[in-house]
Each structure stands twice: as structure tokens, then as C-alpha cells.
């Protein structure tokens, strides 16, 4: 059985995926993980998760082109340039 190991480096830090161990149960997994990912004080906590229990989501459809909801949906460079060049010109007054 494969256990994914997530490591927290210091209090408040995110748990970061670090590797995995092979062990028949949680007790053995803990023993290996303590030894391999925490014996030098490099972790304040570990999460051990059976690989099969991880539900992965990695397909992100964007059929409707929803870019207007994100920063990369806007390119203001050209418009900003034009707006700046109009300041003080006669075009605005007419």
C-alpha cells in the first residue's frame, strides 16, 4: 500500500507534498515517514494519506471562454495609451 506524505515545515506553513512510503498500515507508514521525513526536525507535522484515497481533479474545461472573470481576460495597454494621449488634446473638447 502506498501512502502519500505531506510535510509541514514550520507552524502556519502549508502542507506540501514531499514523497511517498510503502507500508501495509498507518502504524508502519508513520514509522517510515517519521524516519524519512522528520528525523532531523525538518517537519513540524506530517499528513499520511493512502494514495487510493486521493481524489484528483485536474481537468478544467473552458468551453465558454470565461476569461472576463480573470486578470488575463483584460489587456488595457493600448486603451490606456490612447486615453493618456487624448489628455489635453483638442479631440476631447470637440
Amino acid at each position, binding site marked *: 500500500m*502506498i501512502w502519500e506524505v505531506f510535510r509541514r515545515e514550520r507552524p502556519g506553513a502549508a502542507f506540501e*507534498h*514531499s*514523497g*511517498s*512510503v*510503502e*507500508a*501495509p*498500515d498507518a502504524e*508502519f507508514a508513520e514509522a*517510515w515517514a517519521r*524516519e*524519512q*521525513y522528520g*528525523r*532531523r526536525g*525538518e517537519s513540524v507535522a506530517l499528513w499520511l494519506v493512502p494514495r487510493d484515497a486521493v481524489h*484528483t481533479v485536474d481537468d478544467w474545461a473552458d468551453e465558454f471562454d470565461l476569461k472576463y472573470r480573470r486578470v488575463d481576460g483584460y489587456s488595457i495597454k493600448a486603451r490606456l495609451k490612447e486615453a493618456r494621449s487624448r489628455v489635453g488634446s483638442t479631440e476631447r473638447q470637440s
Partner: protein
Amino acid sequence: MRSEQEFLEYVQGGGQVEATDWLPDEYRAKLVKFVEMHANSELMGVLPEREWILRAPTLQRKLALTAKVQDEVGHAQLIYRVAEDLGKPRDAMFADLLSGKAKFHNVFHYPTKTWGDVGVIAWLVDAAAIISQKALLKCSYAPYARIMKKICWEESFHILHGRDVILAMVTGTPEQFELVQEALTRWWPPLMQFHGNPIPADQDPMVHWRIKSQANEDARQQFLDGYVPQIRELGLEIPDPKLRKNEDGVWEYTEPDWDELKHVVTGHGPKTSERLALRARFLEQEQWVREAVLAA
């Protein structure tokens, strides 16, 4: 990514892939071979130092050396796990190691004659290794790159420990200084061979797939740049009359013996068979532990 071309462009552009991604067969084969050799080197690499645990000069040195050996075996565990996930079972890797089909690094095929050798290994062999391992932080295979972070962190302690051992001896008696000089003279040729022949980056299949991000010669130049001054400032002499830094910043040196490198890593080093026999004995002796644990 479904085509090899697409994959190649992605990794050559600095992209990283995960275990669950589709990997071209050739990439997987090259990667397993590389990762397996690295794991084997960590596992075999503790044997030259292990021989000195019982003979360490002080209790503190004995404890530090034991901790280093424990670290290196831990690295082997992390790296074997990566190779297993790529599809090669651990038993098969051990079998290939023992039969000589799989390789391990040249430096671990040599004897550790004195305590001076232990210092030189911990300082300079680990320094050479950390240069390669730091470059692997950018490896195209992300799970391998991630464990390298932890490995590099631990190697830093090894280098400092090695340097401390060396400093204690070069500031000691003339006999102690001589032990370090002799060890350095013995280890210099294998150290210069360590990063491999100067194959151009665009012809190195490992660079092609971005498994490695650094050409062999670049790694060696980085090693010389960092460590030649540190060696010389201690009054030690590097046994290469041609060694010098050119005005363009490139180190010139006597061509390492590439035939020796090939001969040694293909299983003909002075200590190869003895160390493999020891590894075989322990694997057999501890087979029951692996069986009991995995059957639990």
C-alpha cells in the same frame, strides 16, 4: 500531452510532469535508469564510510558519521520509491544491483584507507554530489525534483561535517596533515571523473529530456570553481600540475582517465565485488523483515 513531440517541447521549455501523466516510453526508460543509479549510489555510498564507524577517533565523530550514514540510506529509500512509482519493483532493482546490471557512482568503488579518506569523502565527494543534485531540483520529473529539496538540505550538513574533520586534521600534527594530503592525492582522479565525460549538452540524452539540466563539464567547472580555492587555502596540494584557471574563467586540467571511469563503474573497481557481496549478505539476512512488513 499525447505526442512525444509535444511532451519534448514541454519539458525542454522547463515544464515538469507528474507520475500520473502520460510519459513517452523512452523518457520513462531513461528516467528509471538514471533514478535507479542514483538510489544505488546512495545505498552503496554508505559502505566506504560505514567501515570507519567503529574506528572513528572520538565519540562525537562516531555519532556524526553514523548520522550521515543514516541520512544516505534514507536518501536511497526516497529515491528507490520514486523509481518504484515509475514501474520498476524494488526487488528487481536490488537484483540488478547485485548482478552488476545496474550501476552506481565511481567514487563508491574505491577503498577508504584512512580517516583522512573519510574526511575527503564527506567534504569533497559530497560537494561534487550536491552540485549534481542541486541541478536536479529543476528535473522535468517533478516527484524526483521534490525529494531532491530535502536531500540537498541534508547534504549541506555532510559537507560541513567533512570540512570540520579535514580542518581538525590539517591543524593537528604533521602526520595528521599528511593523512589528509595522501587522501586528497588518492581521491583527486576519481573526483575529476565523478561528473562524467564532457559530452556536449545537446548530445546528452539526459539533458535532451531535461532529466538533467546541466552538462557534465559545467558541473565539473562549478566544482573546481568552488573547491579548488578552499583546498589550496589549507596548504594542500592538488595532484595535477596542469590545473589552472584561464583568463576566461574556465578551468584547465589534465584529461581524466575516462577508461578507468568506465572500467570502474562497470563493476571492476578495487572494492566493487567486496561491497556488493556485503550488500548481498545483508539483503539476504534481512529478507524476512521485508516479507513480514509487507505481509502485515
